[in-house]
C-alpha cells in the first residue's frame, strides 16, 4: 500500500504546524489534568462539612478478640450475632452503611445484638491507616461514631491521599476523640497487629469481598442488588 505523500508547506502540514499541534495538545491535556487534580482535592477537603453537625453518641465499650478474627466487638453475649466485614475505602460498604448503618447502631445501643465489625484493609495503604484509626477509636469507646464519620467523608477515589493520619485525627476531632492517646495511636499506627490479624482472618472465614454479613455465623445472601433496610432487618429478625 503506497503511503500518501506528506503535506506541503502551504497546506498547513509543515514542521511548524506539526509542532504547534503537538504543543496545543500537550497544553490541553496538561491543563485538563491539573484542573481535575485540583477539583478532586477541593472536593475531598470540602467533605469535612458533612461532619459539622455530628452528634456524638454515648461511649460504647468495645473489645477485640483474636478468637473471632480480631474484629471490633460490642455487646458480647447478646442473643444474636452480626458479623460485618467491610473496608473503610470500599464504596459499596458506604452504600450499605447508608441503608443499614443507623439500624445497626440502634441494635447496638439497645444491646439487641452482638456486633463484630471486621475492619478490613485490602484496598491499599490508606485502608490500613483508616482501619488502624478505627481500632484506636474503639479503645476510647467511640468506634461507632468514628465508623459513621469515616463513611460520611469517604472520598470517591481509593488511595487518593485523603486518609492520612492527619486527616484521620481531624475526623476523630469531630466525634469527640481529642485525647492525646488517640492522636498518638493514629499517628504511630499502633494497632497494626490487630489490623493485620483482621485482614488475615478473611481466609479463615472464607470472606472474599466487602461488605459481607454473617447472621449468627451464617452468610447473609441478599436478594436485592442494592441494599434495602427492609431486607436487612427482616433477615436479622429471622436469624
Amino acid at each position: 500500500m503506497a503511503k500518501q505523500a506528506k503535506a506541503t508547506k502551504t497546506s498547513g502540514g509543515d514542521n511548524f504546524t506539526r509542532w504547534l499541534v503537538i504543543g496545543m495538545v500537550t497544553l490541553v491535556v496538561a491543563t485538563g489534568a491539573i484542573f481535575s487534580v485540583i477539583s478532586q482535592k477541593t472536593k475531598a477537603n470540602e467533605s469535612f462539612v458533612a461532619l459539622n453537625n455530628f452528634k456524638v453518641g454515648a461511649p460504647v465499650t468495645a473489645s477485640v478478640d483474636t478468637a473471632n478474627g480480631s474484629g471490633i466487638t460490642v455487646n458480647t453475649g447478646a442473643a444474636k450475632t452480626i458479623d460485618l466485614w467491610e473496608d473503610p475505602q470500599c464504596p459499596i460498604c458506604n452504600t450499605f452503611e447508608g441503608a443499614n448503618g443507623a439500624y445497626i447502631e440502634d441494635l447496638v445501643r439497645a444491646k439487641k445484638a452482638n456486633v463484630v465489625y471486621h475492619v478490613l484493609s485490602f484496598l491499599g495503604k490508606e485502608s490500613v491507616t483508616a482501619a488502624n484509626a478505627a481500632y484506636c477509636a474503639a479503645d476510647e469507646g467511640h468506634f461507632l461514631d468514628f465508623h459513621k464519620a469515616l463513611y460520611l467523608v469517604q472520598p470517591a477515589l481509593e488511595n487518593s491521599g485523603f486518609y492520612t493520619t492527619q486527616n484521620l485525627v481531624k475526623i476523630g476531632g469531630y466525634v469527640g476523640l481529642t485525647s492525646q492517646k488517640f492522636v498518638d495511636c493514629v499517628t504511630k499506627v499502633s494497632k497494626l497487629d490487630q489490623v493485620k490479624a483482621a485482614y488475615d482472618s478473611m481466609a479463615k472465614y472464607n470472606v472474599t469481598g466487602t461488605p459481607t454479613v454473617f447472621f449468627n455465623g451464617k452468610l447473609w445472601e441478599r436478594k436485592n442488588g442494592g441494599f434495602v433496610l427492609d431486607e436487612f432487618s427482616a433477615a436479622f429478625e429471622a436469624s
Partner: protein
Amino acid sequence: MRKLHNRFQPIITLVLRLLLGGVLLVAGGLKAFKPDESAGAVAAYKILPTNIAHLIGYALPWLEIAIGVLLIIGLSARLAAVVGTAVMLIFVVAIISVWARGILIDCGCFGGGGAVDPSKSAQVHRAYLLETLRDLGLAITGLYLYFFPYGLLSVEKPLQIIEEQ
C-alpha cells in the same frame, strides 16, 4: 482494484476520520468533567500504582478530546491517527489483562468504571470480548488513516492535490 480504491479513498478517509475522531471525542467528553470516575476507572484495572493510575485517569479524557478534534477537522491527521491507534491498542492490552487476571470491572470507556458485582460475571466477560473487538477495529481504522490521512473536508491537503490545482 487500486484504481477503485484511489477513487473512493478521499471519502473512505473522511468516514474513518469521523468514526475514530467521533468515538474519541465522545469518550473523552463524557469523562473529562467527571475526574473522580475516570481516575477510579483507570485504577480499577490494577495495572499501575494507584497515584499514577489516577493521574492517567485525569489526563486521558483530554487527550482523547484533542486527538478526536484533530481527526475530525483533519489537522495533523496522520500524527493523530498514530496516537489514536496506540491508545486503542493500549485499551485492548488493558482489557485482555484484566480479563486474564479474572478481575471483573466496567471498562469505563465512556464514563463509569470500577468493580462489578460477581453475579454479573457472564455479562462482564461478554463486554470484554465486544470491547476488545471494537477497539481492535478502531485500531485498524487508525492504521488506514496513517497510510491515507488526507481526504475530503480536511484542513490539510496532500502534496499532489496542491500541485494539481
